[in-house]
């Protein structure tokens, strides 16, 4: 089983930091942040305006501000606002979780979807519905946390078993195997119950549409806690990138940073999956795109992910509404089509081992 080895990107990380002038980088980061924030606001309004009944910007503004029960305000507030805000939350959660996972495992291919964390959450949720008859976002959310914690713990266990820096592909493979295994068990369970299957097949694609406000309210506190934890980890993640020994000698307590990061990943992935279903590749695409522009400073990456993640998910949701009229493509499908080529490009760029 030795062919699974990829060269580490740690060398590049260190090189990069010496070469680039930090000040210039910070300026770039600030610029990207402002630009990204502008794009997110624009996409936010586009998401309120675009749909099977297109609204003009003045109509959107009118509907937003008056709330008088007019058609515009109903469309804006009851139909499009929940999915738009959900897209923002889910995007931020998944992108930040992706940055955290890549930093924690020192694996550029780590991502909640690829490593099977989302399928872990899906599995436990379907199990709870089938066995316990648990329904409602409130209970589902806790089971989703449980599932993503178990799956994340599992793949993380595999990743720290191997201190060798050459196991990037192996970790992804373990994630794929976990997804296949849990996906089959989920498939067996949904097979007995047409009702569960009927809702499961829509949920499993990953969508922010027609989820209503209930899951939104339920996941918001958890996402916020997860994001704060993640941002608090930033400086320690920078030290961690140098390796366990270096990080320890710089005063980082490995157990603390691992525990915090783990809790944050679990909260973010569990909440996003519970509300929107498994959405893959957001956690892969966003960190890599940002790293190309602003470098490897983890705090900058984390804060920019808060902008870029929502931008990607909002854009994917809007694209899904435009490309297949009169129907819609789910956001999970669109991100898979955007993300998988990125993964392929990353694979092709790597040197042969």
């Amino acid at each position, binding site marked *: *089983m*030795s*062919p*699974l*080895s*990829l060269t580490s990107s740690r060398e590049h990380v260190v090189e990069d930091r010496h070469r680039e002038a930090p000040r210039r980088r910070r300026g770039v980061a600030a610029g990207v942040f402002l630009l990204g924030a502008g794009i997110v606001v624009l996409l936010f309004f586009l998401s309120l305006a675009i749909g099977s009944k297109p609204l003009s910007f003045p109509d959107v503004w009118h509907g937003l501000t008056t709330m008088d029960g007019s058609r515009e305000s109903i469309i804006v507030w009851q139909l499009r606002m929940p999915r738009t805000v959900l897209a923002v939350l889910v995007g931020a959660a998944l992108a930040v979780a992706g940055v955290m996972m890549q930093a924690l495992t020192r694996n550029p*291919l780590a991502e909640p*979807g*690829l490593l099977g964390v989302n399928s872990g959450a899906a599995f436990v949720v379907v199990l709870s519905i089938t066995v316990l008859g648990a329904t409602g976002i409130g209970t589902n959310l806790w089971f989703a946390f449980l599932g993503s914690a178990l799956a994340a713990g599992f793949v993380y266990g*595999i990743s720290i*078993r*191997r201190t060798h820096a050459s196991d*990037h*592909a*192996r970790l*992804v*493979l*373990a994630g*794929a*195997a*976990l*997804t*296949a*295994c*849990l*996906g*089959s*068990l989920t*498939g*067996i369970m*949904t*097979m*007995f119950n*047409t009702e569960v*299957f*009927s809702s499961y*097949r*829509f949920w*499993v*694609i990953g969508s922010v549409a027609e989820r209503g406000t209930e899951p939104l309210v339920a996941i918001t506190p958890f996402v916020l806690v997860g994001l704060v934890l993640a941002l608090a980890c930033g400086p320690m993640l920078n030290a961690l990138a140098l390796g366990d020994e270096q990080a320890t000698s710089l005063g980082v307590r490995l157990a603390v940073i691992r525990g915090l990061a783990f809790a944050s990943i679990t909260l973010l992935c569990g909440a996003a999956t519970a509300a929107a279903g498994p959405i*893959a*590749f957001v956690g892969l695409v966003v960190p890599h795109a940002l790293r190309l522009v602003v470098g490897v400073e983890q705090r900058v990456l984390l804060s920019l992910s808060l902008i870029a993640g929502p931008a990607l998910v909002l854009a994917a949701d809007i694209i899904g509404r435009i490309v297949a009229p009169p*129907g819609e*493509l*789910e956001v*999970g*499908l669109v991100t*898979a*089509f955007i*993300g*998988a*080529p990125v*993964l*392929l490009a990353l*694979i*092709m760029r*790597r040197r*042969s*081992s």
Partner: protein
Amino acid sequence: MSTTRTRAGARYLPPGYWCVRLPRFGSLLLHRRTLAVVAGLSVVALLVAALTVVTGAYHLTPVEALRTLVLGTGSDLDRFIVLDQRLPRVLAALLVGAALGAAGAIFQSVSRNPLGSPDIIGFTTGAATGGLLIILLGGSVTSMTIGAGTIVGGAITALAVVLISLRRGLSGDRLVLGGIAISAILASVNDYLLSRSAIEEAEVAKAWQHGSLNAISWQPLLPLVLVAAIAIPASLLHVRNLRILELGDDTAAGVGLGLTRTRVTALTIGVALTAIAVATAGPIGFLALAAPQLARRLSRSPGVSVLASTAMGALLLIIADLAAQRVLSPFQIPVGLVTAAVGGAYLIWLLVFSRQQSARPSRSPG
């Protein structure tokens, strides 16, 4: 090796091997433990097959079922159940399993990579996409059209993955990661297709998508029997060349092996076996990955053994099918879900515990 002479002047025979002298064709070196394993696996597989035939949800005692099977007695319904329902299903399970086992051994041997299996390079997911497209979009749903759809879908996907990973040399990593990336897209497409169809169609498609032997009859069995009867012996005849190929390109070319010809022949046999298995039973996950590895561990042979892997594949699928029928009876689980769940877990186990493995010197592929 059999011509090397020891100091005593006797013919050198590697430990654990039998040498069979054939009057015309020279001699044949047989790994003793592998032979024992093949015999054992075959016996167990046949026993499980017999058990599957004589028991079941239909009220018929094993003795009656056996009598119906052997003597053809019993009512019309008895004969229908035993001869037209259970018997073809058992045969299909054995043959599909054997075909996938042999194909997996060939792929792993040629790619010198334990992960070189139809699942990893996207064949299975692509086959599911092709079949789903036929079931959900195409008008005519016969076993013929679905079979064609699966083969085309799987072949296109596998070709795409191989072409992507070919850039700058075929490396194991890129093959695996490329397969995962393409599979991720296709899995989304499959989910999308399922969500867009009527719930009844989706249920049918879902049962098929995961590979199932539930509704097999004699008719689709015929092409399977034909292809297996040709391709499995052909693969066994090809084993010697594969073994030489595993030594590395230079050595293999040095002893006079036509590299391209050997590879193309082997892959053609492997693809034919996979295609007929998928067309008959739908995509059955992870069997082609697990069977060669399990067989190798059991027989402790130096490389992947096609024969042992064939027997192991047949045994694994017949057991999985029995479990799929009986565990949650009267519900019939698609057998592909059983193999994917168990096979995925096995792959994880391999990944976690293979360190001691790779430390041990072995001539295993990869």
